[in-house]
């Protein structure tokens, strides 16, 4: 029989539930809320058969563009030939997790807002820009003993003693 190319072809392991995590999904999956513009990871939950994305999107991260009763609209990048298309898919909430890719940015925004507010109160001007790591500063080498190593002249007799 020829190989099939159905929607769920070759997903035996991809959509399988992890070891000892089969059965009902925990409630926090259903209690999370998603707002438009947030970043989410698409990760298929094989035990929920409705609203499953195609296997291509498993492991992709995208932005939320729509929120419906039980599903989220996610905008994911897909390379088609020589270009990248933004594809809009609808996925049930069981197949979606909030992404932490953006977490660091959001924390930094909050921290910067706080720093700017403090600086404004004090009347100072600060720069909240990130700086890349520069070259290491110079340092003195401590606790080093000097050992001068010189080559010894080649001694034919001794070297050949081993056998030749």
């Amino acid at each position: 029989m020829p190989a099939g190319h159905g929607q769920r072809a070759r997903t035996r392991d991809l959509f399988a539930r992890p070891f000892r995590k089969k059965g009902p999904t925990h409630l926090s999956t259903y209690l999370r809320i998603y707002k438009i513009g947030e970043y989410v990871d698409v990760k298929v939950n094989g035990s929920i058969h409705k609203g499953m994305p195609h296997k291509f999107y498993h492991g992709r991260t995208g932005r939320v563009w729509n929120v419906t009763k039980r599903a989220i609209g996610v905008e994911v990048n897909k390379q088609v030939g020589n270009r990248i298309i933004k594809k809009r898919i609808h996925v049930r909430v069981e197949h979606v997790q909030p992404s932490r890719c953006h977490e660091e940015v959001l924390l930094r925004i909050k921290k910067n807002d706080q720093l700017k507010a403090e600086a404004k109160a004090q009347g100072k001007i600060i720069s909240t820009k990130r700086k890349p790591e520069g070259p290491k500063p110079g340092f003195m080498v401590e606790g080093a003993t000097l050992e001068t190593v010189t080559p010894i002249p080649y001694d034919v007799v001794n070297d050949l003693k081993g056998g030749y």
Partner: protein
Amino acid sequence: MAFVKAQKTKAYFKRFQVKFKRRRAGKTDYRARIRLINQDKNKYNTPKYRFVVRFTNKDIVAQVVSATIAGDVVLAAAYAHELPRYGLEVGLTNYAAAYCTGLLLARRVLKTLEMDDEYQGNLEATGEDYSVEPADSRRPFRALLDVGLLKTTTGNRVFGALKGALDGGLDIPHSDKRFAGFSKDSKQLDAEVHRKYIYGGHVSSYMMNLMEDEPEKYQTHFSRYVKKGLEADNLEQLYKKVHAAIRADPTAKKSEKQPPKQHKRYNLKKLTYEERKAKLIERLNALNAAAGADEDDDDDEDE
């Protein structure tokens, strides 16, 4: 002894997947819970309230709960053991007491949300199917009945509590199919029978039966009723008074609790990490000190 092959090997335990804790305890039906809690995503943070009714052997618990990731939050709760405050001292787990508990919870919730004037509910309990009419200003308080793990047969006490909450003014989607007094043949709710149950009529008739046929059994079975002087006839007016008292003042009363007694400790208290480290350092120091003293003696021997 005969050779028995070990049934539960180490491999069995390694592969064993435990069910959720509350499922292992047999307390939560997760299939039902998922469906009760699931809120439309386009309603974002709007809470979805459940009207939870649970029966123990001697008490009834009615709560209005909403779910969060950190845990369920109880908006208001009413227990059958609060009913003595309103004048009902005996029969705290029967259909009539369930009605009173549901009514108490409903009035309590509406009072905390300051909706109790708008939504009076059904002032006279007739046993007919009653649903709250939406008033002009706010929509009624909506909750979904959560029965838990019990069998929803017609005439179950949980539906008595449901009826109490409905008459109290809550909006709970329901049908009259499971109220006491619904007959399968005529497919209709007999409001008279339901009213009888709400006012403890079924208990009264049993009391009258026993008094006639087996007076000794009546004395043992209904001893607490006898002690309070409750007869089969005055049950209905007792419940009417309780309903009125509940509507008058549904606010919860904080009970005064003594701080628990300190008991003598019979086992050793577990040490904290710092305490254990400190003990170890002490022991090592003591050992070193002793070893230092011994070394001087041993050195001569070893040598």
